[in-house]
């Protein structure tokens, strides 16, 4: 997998324990240093923002890059996404990318 940071959604998280991944979601409620991310396939991911607290999400939709461990995503960085971001299409793209891993990982 080398330097790949695969784009996944909630249902594929279990395959990437301990790995650095990217996940897109709508920003939900804050719980201390954590934020709930509502993923494109209607899952909920706890994002630990302890390492990146000085930067705030600027939009409602974000892509978070972090390490998935023990049911929590430790954020390394994030990217703001536009408000018109199409969750359904992105979700289908992720499913297709998992069927064609040879060009993604």
């Amino acid at each position, binding site marked *: 997998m080398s330097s790949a940071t695969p784009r996944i959604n909630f249902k594929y998280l279990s395959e990437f324990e301990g790995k650095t991944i*990217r996940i897109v979601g709508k920003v939900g409620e804050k719980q201390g240093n954590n934020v709930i991310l509502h993923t494109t396939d209607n899952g909920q991911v706890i994002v630990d923002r302890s390492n990146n607290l000085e930067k705030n999400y600027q939009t409602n939709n974000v892509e978070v890059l972090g390490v998935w461990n023990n049911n929590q995503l430790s954020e390394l960085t994030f990217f703001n*996404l536009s408000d018109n971001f*199409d969750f359904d299409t*992105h979700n289908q793209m992720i499913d297709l990318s998992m069927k064609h891993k040879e*060009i993604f990982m």
Partner: protein
Amino acid sequence: MTNNPNENVIVRTITPLTIRQIQLSTESEGNTFKIDKEFVMNVSLVGTVIKVINGNTYTNYTIDDGTGQLKIREFKRNKQNNMIDQEEQEQEQEQEQEQEQEQEQVNEEKKKSEQIQNPFENKYVRIIGNLKAYKKQKSFSVNKIMEITDSNQITTHFLEAILVHIQRINGVTNQGQTTSQESQIKEEKIEIKKETNKNKNNNIITQQNTDQILGLALKDKALRLISSNQTSSGISLQELSKKLKSTEEEIREIVDFFLDQGQIYITIDDEHFRSTD
């Protein structure tokens, strides 16, 4: 599209790829690469800029698209000295390679202390460029880099990359979609005849005869005229209009199209053009 490496093949389409595909590509004859058994030259990528190094004549970006990381180079334009010739740039590249690590450290410190930031750093960008071999290594030269403002372009790019990949591995000859909105883009294989190869040094008469024989459309004739001009200032809009017997407006539309595709670039002013090939 032929798989015969001995034919001089020019691929006009822009292929949407992932960085992983570029990493897996195999070098073919004539400085080109093959991906999914097809020749690839003009490439589009979408990813985030994670590092920027400014050189005197170029800017190096490190791009991460989630499938891997790739260093790409955008050559700068110096209007006072006209377009910096790509060969000169490659020579400068050799000289500056040793200083790159030191420059990187200086830039990091500068960035921290003065908070100077390239506008693309840590942002999603779309890149159109050329994949070439340089000293047996993959080299990606940027024709255009643009910040992505509609994030759906990220999804669209990867869907296009998947589509083209599936089409090629299933042996479909159509190379798939390009990222351009122009509906006129089609894949062509242009066979450059031996006589044209021998007379590549601005033999316009041979070029025109070859055009007549091949019966190419106005757009292709324009590109061939631009490509055949080897002067540093390139060919002018007026000269193209005269030679192709078309209005300047028609020629302007054509050159704007090729500029957007990254197949030509502006030299001394916005009425002089050279090919990026």
